[in-house]
Structures are given as C-alpha cells and as structure tokens.
C-alpha cells in the first residue's frame, strides 16, 4: 500500500493527541498517509481506518447520532474497515454496557464488539493510575498503560481475542477488524499500539485491493 487515509472521530475528547500519535507512527514506519478529523459523513467513504479517541462516551455517542454519523460508521466497520476504540471509544463499540455504580446504562452505542464493558470500573479520577502492562501485538510487548477513569472488559464473546490483562481484568481486545483498549496509548511516547493498528489497516487494504 502506498497511501492511506486514517480518520479520528472528532466529536469530543483528546482528538489532537490521537492525530499526532498517528502522524508520528506513519512517519516512523516510513509510510505515506494522511490523518483527518471526522465529524460529519462527508469523508467516511474514503477512510481506510478510524480511531475513536478517549473522552466522555455519553457525549460522543449523543453527538455522533447527528446526521446518522454513527450508523454510517457502523456500516463501514461491518464492511471490514479497521477501527481502534480507546477508553470511551471502547465503550462506544461494545455490545453490553454497565456502570460500576449505576448499573446498566441506556446510553447509545454501536453494538459491534462482543464484550461486556464495565464503565468507571477502576474508580474515580483519584484512583486513575499508571502501570506497566504486557500486551500481545502479536509478540508480548511491555508498555506504559495510562488508565483515566477507565472501564474494564468483564466478559468477552467467542470471536474476541484477549490482548492484555491487568490483575485478571481484561484491558485490551481484538475482534477481527476491531481493536480496543481501556487505557490511553496517546498519552505516552510509545506508538506501538498505533503501529499495530496501521498494520491492521495495511492488511485490510492488501486483502481488498
């Protein structure tokens, strides 16, 4: 593949940090590609991959309903476009959502990733934490995990591969073209997760062209 187009869903959250992490990774891998902020349906058809950044999942979901943006992205993901959901993005992609304190939430979501996610599992902001984690990409790699009011993945369905656990809590998964983490790789120097995501984009591109 000589050129690709990565989108960052630009409704709410740390959009710029994700844009620069992707740019940094593209440069490091010596690829050619562009990163676009996506907040309407105009450029969706041209995308080779999409990142849903961290932020507030209720806000991102509510504002993504406008102009049926979420629905159109859903179709594109079902067609095989690689997608990377981070924290709020993970919540948005998942099938079943509970809040640790409130219980089941009726928030809007995309219903694509066969996992049960527990919001705010690791506690409030004071309990947000950093820790080294090990993640299967596809070799076992050690990297810094930044967990900010993070969810955990409580259960996974059959087609879901567990990439990382922390003290028996699942924190990263992959289901075919969907990659999701409950921590924030965009807040560290390490671009390993973005490089892995770009390799997913490349594989998908090679298969379809």
């Amino acid at each position, binding site marked *: 593949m000589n050129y690709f187009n990565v989108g960052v869903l*630009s*409704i*709410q*959250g*740390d*959009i*710029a*940090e994700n844009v*620069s*992490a992707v740019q940094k990774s593209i440069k490091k891998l010596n690829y050619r590609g562009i990163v676009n902020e996506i*907040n*309407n349906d105009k450029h969706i058809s041209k995308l080779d991959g999409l990142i849903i950044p*961290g*932020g*507030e999942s*209720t*806000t991102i979901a*509510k*504002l993504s309903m*406008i102009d049926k943006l979420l629905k159109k992205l859903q179709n594109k993901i079902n067609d095989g476009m690689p997608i990377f959901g981070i*924290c*709020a993005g993970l919540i948005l992609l998942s099938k079943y959502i509970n*809040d640790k*304190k*409130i219980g089941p*939430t009726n*928030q809007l979501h995309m219903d694509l990733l066969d996992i049960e996610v527990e*919001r*705010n599992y690791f506690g*409030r*902001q*004071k*309990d*947000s*934490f*950093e*820790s*080294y*984690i090990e993640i299967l990409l596809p070799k076992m790699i050690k990297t810094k995990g*930044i967990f*900010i*009011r993070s969810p955990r993945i409580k259960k996974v369905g059959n087609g879901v591969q567990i990439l990382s656990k922390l*003290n028996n809590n699942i924190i990263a998964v992959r289901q075919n073209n969907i990659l999701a983490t409950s921590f*924030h790789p*965009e*807040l*560290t*120097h390490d671009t390993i997760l973005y490089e892995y995501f770009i390799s997913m984009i490349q594989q998908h591109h090679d298969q379809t062209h």
Partner: protein
Amino acid sequence: MISLCGDINNHKGVITRKTNLDDVVCGTTTLKRGFAHMLKNGVVMDVTSVEQAHIAEDAGAVAVMVLDKLPSDVRKVGGVARTASIKIISDIMNTVTIPVMAKCRIGHVYEAHVLEKTNVDMIDESEVLTPADETHHIWKWNFTAPFVNGCRSLAEALRRIEEGASMIRTKGEPGTGNVVEAVRHINKVNYELAMLKSIINSGNEHILINLARDFQVSYNVLEKTAQLGRLPVVNFAAGGISTPADAAYLMSLGCDGIFVGSGIFKSSDAKERAYATVLATTFWNNFDKVQEAQNLIDEKESMLGLDTKELELQMQKRGSN
C-alpha cells in the same frame, strides 16, 4: 503525548502502590492533566441539585460542577460563598456516570482536602466563592486529585500551573450572562502567547528572562510554554457564557471547551439550552450547526444579564496574585 511543562518530580500527590507485579502509581501529572484532556471539546455545567445534574448529563455535558448557589445567586445573596454540601455532591456522584467537580475557596486547603476525600474528580479553586487566603493559592502538588484554576492572562495561568493546576479556565465575569470579560481574557492570553512565540522565534531567548520577572513565573516554565506555543494544560472558557452562539464564539478563539455557570439553569429553557450549548460547542466550526443550536433556544428565556462595568463585585479580580 501531553506536555509535562512545570512538573515537579515526586510531589506529595503521587501515590505509589506496590503490587506483586509492577507498581501502580496514582496522581501523576500525566494522569491529572490527561483527565482534563478527556474533557476537550466539551461543556462542563454548573449544577446545584441532582435534578440539574441529570439534565446536564442527558444534554451531553462532559462533566458537572457542583455549587451551593449558581454564580448569579452568589452575586444577589451576598455574604460568604463556601463549598457545596458534601451530601449534595455525594448524591450527584451516585446518580450520574460523568465526572463530578466541585468548587473550593481560593487558598482554602481544608475545603480542598474535604473535596478530595469526597472523591470528586476535579477541584475548582474558584473566584466565584469568597477567597479564604488573599496571599496564597493552594499548593496543588500536595493533592492526588487534579485542580482547575481561573486566569485573566498568561502570567496568571502560568503561576497557577506552577502551583500544580492541571487545567486552566479563563475567568470571565461569573454570574453576569455577559460574555465580554471571557472574550477579553482569552484574547489577552492569545496575545501574550503570540508575543512569546515571536520572542522565541527571533532567537533572542534572553528577553524571556525579563518577561519571566514581569510574569512572576520561572524562566523554565515560560521557555517551555514559548516552545509549545500554547498553554501547557487544557484551557476552557468560563464566566458569562449564556447562549450557544457565545459558546461557539469562545471555541473559535482557541478555547478547548466551555464552562457554563448561571447561563443554563438561570434561563427558563434549561433543558433545550443545555443541549444547544453542547451542540454549538462540538460543531463551533460549522455555522449551519451553530444556527441550528441557537434556534433551539429563545432569547426571551435567556438570563437578563449585567453590564460588567457597573458591577459592585468583580469576582475576576479575586486571587489574581
């Protein structure tokens, strides 16, 4: 990556828990500033009750800020404004899933400790409340919870960051429904940042030392800010925002998000206005969407508003040292 400019190594707020695997660390600057980064492009709404917190969450607010009285009522009632009742804060924390912030008085270390123990997600050391210490702000590095502080200029912002603030909001003039001061303050910050950039680009870095003396901040923080070309932490607009167009206007001036105080719950169409403000903030770059948002509210329902030149109490002047 986020900027760690001004970070102090191993400050008291950092807590390390040893585990049999790797250490787990809480309260680092990455975590505190990172929390603020997750709020970007969003609206934080002032609330005084569980009911208002629900309206805010349903409207798409990224967080709520709990107060005893909305700023315009603080202005009306007078007396001493203090932190909100713990019970109300806890009740709100138990019913919404979005982050909950609360205000403490400027310099009031113990109100801040009480809020941290209550487990609020962020503490606002706020000029809306009556200051407790007119010389010192809270030394925020001693806390695991992150703080947001107000500013009217770049110098004020950097002084707060040196004290450990993880987020900044331009002050505006709270409780007035008048956006003029909020605009003045972000313009001033932007002007000073532009000046800083031109100094560093000119290669005459030694001029920065004079500016650091003027600003009453360390050379190191000023130099790093100049290299970044922006505030090293997330910056929201606040103080007097009362319509969707107000919010979009401030976003266009380079603010990362919006705090709305009295603007929403002192209007007669709070529910519509709350959502409309979120919509206009998200899509500030799209005039069609801002028009659509503004059309969801009725100007006849907006809070009356005050001329900031005739105010007896200028909250923005509190804690400027």
